């Protein structure tokens, strides 16, 4: 399977899981709503141009919005992830130029701890933005703070499970 087809399939799969499983199971313990779909934006290759990444982030978020009838909410959060991803990857790669040697960010290419920190930052970012917009329209300050923490914990747990279940094999690329 070629790489673009793989990316499209993984995007559809994650959207499917988000819309028809995680949004339907109900709230865990009455208030926790897990999100995993945005992990797709981290799976995109290292060498993707930033403009393309922004467009992909926007339309990917919008496609979830179509299902949840929240026009622009998740697109807004995804745009932030897409915009900040190159900076974060530069911060967390093991050595300069390593992004040339591997295809995309993963446990293998970045190291488990560094990758986990990257995922954690993106998860916190996503939940803070979404919850902040909802806080502006619904209110409830302590619920807002508590939901960021609880959603992040559960989402991270699910993302780790997904990463362990679907290992993305990558070879070390050399010039020779």
């Amino acid at each position: 399977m070629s790489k673009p087809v793989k990316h499209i399939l993984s995007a559809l799969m994650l959207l499917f899981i988000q819309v028809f499983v995680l949004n339907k199971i109900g709230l865990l313990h009455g208030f926790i709503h897990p999100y995993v779909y945005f992990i797709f934006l981290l799976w995109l290759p290292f060498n993707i141009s930033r403009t393309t990444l922004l467009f992909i982030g926007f339309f990917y978020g919008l496609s979830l919005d179509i299902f949840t009838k929240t026009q622009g909410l998740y697109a807004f959060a995804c745009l932030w992830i897409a915009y900040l991803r190159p900076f974060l990857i530069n911060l967390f790669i093991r050595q300069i130029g390593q992004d040339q040697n591997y295809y995309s960010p993963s446990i293998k290419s970045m190291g488990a701890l560094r990758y986990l920190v990257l995922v954690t930052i993106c998860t916190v970012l996503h939940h803070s933005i979404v919850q902040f917009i909802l806080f502006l329209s619904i209110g409830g300050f302590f619920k807002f703070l508590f939901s960021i923490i609880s959603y992040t914990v559960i989402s991270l747990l699910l993302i780790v499970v997904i990463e362990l279940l679907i290992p993305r094999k990558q070879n070390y690329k050399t010039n020779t």
Partner: protein
Amino acid sequence: MGRLFSIIRQFKNLLLFVFLQIMCLVMLYNYNKTYHTIGSAMANQVSGAINNKFNGFNDYLYLKQTNEQLAKRLEQLSNNQPSVLDGPLSAVRTFADTSIVDTLGNKKITVRFRELLAKVTYNSLFADNKKNFIQIHRGTLDGIKKDMALVSETGAIAGRIVEVSNHYATAISLLNIDFKVSAKHGKSQVKGLIEWDGKSPDFVQLNNVPAGYQINRGDSIYTSSFSDIFPENRLIGTVDTAIKNKSSNFYTIKVRPSTNFYTFSYAYAIDNRDRDEQRKNLSDAQGLAKPPAKNK
């Protein structure tokens, strides 16, 4: 000019980011106000087609409950029909507005409320922004219009249609913080307003009921005649708890909706044919009631 272009080229990603962010915010805040943005009919069509595919599986799991509910509804409807044995009595009895045939079996020419059966393709219960939606597999081509009422299999109210495309329509659910409907308490006929506070999908709130009335657990709450969307005397739910609020002298009433949103798979969309006339009449009257503009 060349400098300007070079600056734009340098910051093109930042500019694109800001532009897309503004687009998102415009969509978000316009949609909240009017439930309608550019391309939302198309989005409705696409999500409807996909939801419909996956709904087949879900329906299979709830076949038994659906069957029971449809049987109940059939019983209600058949009880409403004039029996042959009733004799002259049936000519005197008044029937609900919703029946399409009159006592002689002829089709009534003016039916105020018309019901259309529709399959539910999407129903959310736990939306993060407290705005749940119901999508049905009927659209403009089947005669669905904006602001039609949506009731469940058992006839209890479920939502109001806000968005229509060719084959699909989307309604805001009773479990949506934007949904409001005028209601009345069955025994005392006191009017109130049904709203959802966003906490639990099992309860909605009945507000604006003065504490002077006697309201008990298990009492039925119906739609009032004030609404130009919902027909009168449709069941909304039953009272679960009614607590008198001493500071404001109003009740705090929790109502358990009669619509089972967990196993919701068929719905009736109800069209009020007099709605436009009703609205025009009211707005004309309000225009007349306004004090005339001062001339100086």
